[in-house]
């Protein structure tokens, strides 16, 4: 169905495009409009990025003067098992978070999308975690998960009285759970919005053709949500590269127990601001940028995000 829809697109698109005389003026106008954003990007994006790259080639303890280090920081960061472990944990958080959050967000979105008072009430309740800061969420969950005084102390819930944040095997999954608790509502909102954009006529037509609810979900809802899915997945994947605050708070600022939750951003922070080794921390930061770049390239290529065509041509 999507294939059929897509072939019809170029015609409509060409029609909508302006005549040959206008592009130059439009481009100048466009640049002007983008100028403030570009300026901010340059100032707060590009300049720090170059700064971090330069810092990664120096020794600096944050106090004294810089000294040139060449590739020494890079050598030690890349040869350090801790870096690769942190990267592995980051990937784990990324993939497991995506696996956990996507079905939940989709299910909640599907539930919320039809209008109705009860659904609206639920939607408001689910929305609450989004209004809280990550630090508040971290501290709350830390208290809730305390085996002696948290939820595990409630009669009937003693099976929860486990070192959920303290066991090296469980801690990472506990963290992933709390991250999901925080972000699933947001992605549910994306899916809800996506669902509400699907024209009712598609469902009506399918119903006339004799399609049941399951068929309609599989053949109309899911394909129509493709780009919502891509958007939500990209946000989840790239976002999980930089999860920091929640993990920092939940692990008491250490990425513990041991190094069981020390993801790459946390390793960067600890190296830079607790061990005061800015050179190595910058090398780790650059690694993160490289992975972010690769990831964003990969998701956009694989998902066909660049060819984000309307799925409703001809409607």
């Amino acid at each position, binding site marked *: 169905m999507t294939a059929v829809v897509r072939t019809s697109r170029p015609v409509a698109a060409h029609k909508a495009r302006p005549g040959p005389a206008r592009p130059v003026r439009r481009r100048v106008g466009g640049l002007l409009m983008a100028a403030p954003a570009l300026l901010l*990007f340059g100032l*707060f*994006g590009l300049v*720090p*990025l170059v700064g*971090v790259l330069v810092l990664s080639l120096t020794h600096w*303890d*944050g*106090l004294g003067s810089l000294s040139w280090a060449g590739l020494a920081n890079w050598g030690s960061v890349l040869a350090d098992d801790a870096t690769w472990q942190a990267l592995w944990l980051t990937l784990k958080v990324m993939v497991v978070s995506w696996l956990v959050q996507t079905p939940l967000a989709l299910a909640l979105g599907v539930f919320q999308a039809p209008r109705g008072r009860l659904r609206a009430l639920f939607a408001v309740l689910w929305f609450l975690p989004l209004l809280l800061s990550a630090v508040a969420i971290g501290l709350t969950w*830390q208290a809730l998960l*305390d*085996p*002696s*005084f948290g939820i595990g102390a409630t009669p009937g819930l003693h099976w929860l009285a*486990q*070192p*959920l*944040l*303290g*066991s*090296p095997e469980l801690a990472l999954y506990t963290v992933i759970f709390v991250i999901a608790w925080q972000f699933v509502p947001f992605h549910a909102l994306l899916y809800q919005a*996506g669902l509400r*954009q699907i024209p009712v006529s598609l469902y009506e037509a399918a119903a006339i053709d004799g399609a049941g609810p399951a068929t309609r979900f599989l053949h109309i809802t899911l394909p129509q949500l493709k*780009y*919502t899915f891509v*958007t939500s997945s990209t946000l989840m994947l*790239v976002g999980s*590269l*930089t999860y920091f605050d929640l993990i920092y708070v939940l*692990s*008491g600022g*250490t990425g*513990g*127990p*041991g*190094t069981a939750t020390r993801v790459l951003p946390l390793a*960067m*922070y600890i*190296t*830079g*601001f*607790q*061990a*005061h*080794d800015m050179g190595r921390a910058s090398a780790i*930061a650059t690694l*993160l*940028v490289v992975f*972010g*770049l690769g990831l*964003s*390239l990969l998701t*956009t290529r694989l998902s066909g*995000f*660049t060819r*984000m065509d*309307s*799925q*409703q041509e001809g*409607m």
Partner: protein
Amino acid sequence: MREFQVIGNSGILALPTTRRAAVGAIALAAALSLTACGTSGPGGSSANSSKGLTMWALTDQTILKDSVDAYNKDHPDEKITLRLFANDDYKQKLRVAFGANQAPDIFFSWGGGALDDYVKAGKVDTLTDAQVNLLRFTPSVLKSATFDGKVYGVPANGLAPVVLYYNKKVLKGAGVEPPKTYDELLAAVKKLKGDGVTPISLAANSKWPTLMYLEYLLDREGGSKVFDGIASGDAAAWKDPAVTKANQKLQDLAKAGAFGDNASSVSYDQGASTALLYTGKAGMELMGTWEYANLVKAAPDFVKNDLGYVAFPSVSGGTGDPKSIVGNPSNFLSLNSSSKDKSAALTYLKKYVLNDEQVDAYLAAGSVPPVNKLESKLAAVKSADDKKWLTFVYELVQNSPNFQLSWDQALPSDQADPLLTNVDKSFLREIKPEEFGTNMSEAAQ
């Protein structure tokens, strides 16, 4: 025909792939640098911007705040602006402020390696007896702020050695006496466990409470000279057999179930380890003397009826002096060498820090300030509980041949994180006792 919209179907996402990826990466880098800047917000408290002084300390230092208020009352022309910070990120804030030449005139620290970093970078002024009247302070305490024979900070609050607290009721219930030796401690652990309570409450999630065990065990096993060697920068000193023995003893305690099943989930800042002790869910807790004030605040009846405390047990066969103590001798106030009004700062440090009124205020709060000749003041304390406690702490410090500053404060800051991580791994038995020393000597090189 309605237009199909996906969130983000315009703007950045409409750029060609490579450019979008680049922009995404830049946004990411910006996010990273924001993460980094997050802790650097001293927020326009430049030391030298206006007349008067700035001073940074921790939020819980109310007695310090009172002394600043007293100073400001007497010196309306050269007031001190005091900024108070939460414990966790204070060190990072201070570091970044010094790096950016935005540091306060007077700053609060733990002495040790972190202060030494500033001294080495030429950021801190030496303080002499003539300037700030150093002779009034306990000498073993001043040691933590003394580098190359020169003093760089004055003690600013109470002595904080680490002691073993216990719940009298719980110990009695299990038929256990407060342990005087490590073997008695192990035996007590087994009995308490059999009685169905957590023998020792430990906030292992915060890591530094676990370190306290290792500090004491090493001191008892090998004496204070082992860590003196480590602190002097000798990486090989970490491989001393006493380090392995201390780790072995820590792991033996953990193996015997001393800390229960949940210690690694307990975070000190949440107050859970304190609560375990006063609610009778745990028998003992090893903690700094600040815990007394926490207990008085949270459970005054418990302090009156059931709180007991002893020095850390001795270790048979160890060469260390069982009278030695570890902990935080005190916190210190130091003078920024680029301060523009040093004479005013020195006036504050000399006449207002730990003066008579402040000493009384600390004693009233259950804390022993590190000044000499306190006996008469101690005798005058009215509350019997407080008097017993204050005398215990005072004598513990007076009789100790060595007062070792907490390792995470004593070592250079680049070793603090590997130290805490390896302590945690040793506690979790993820590494063997002998691996601790090997890992640390690698980190120290």
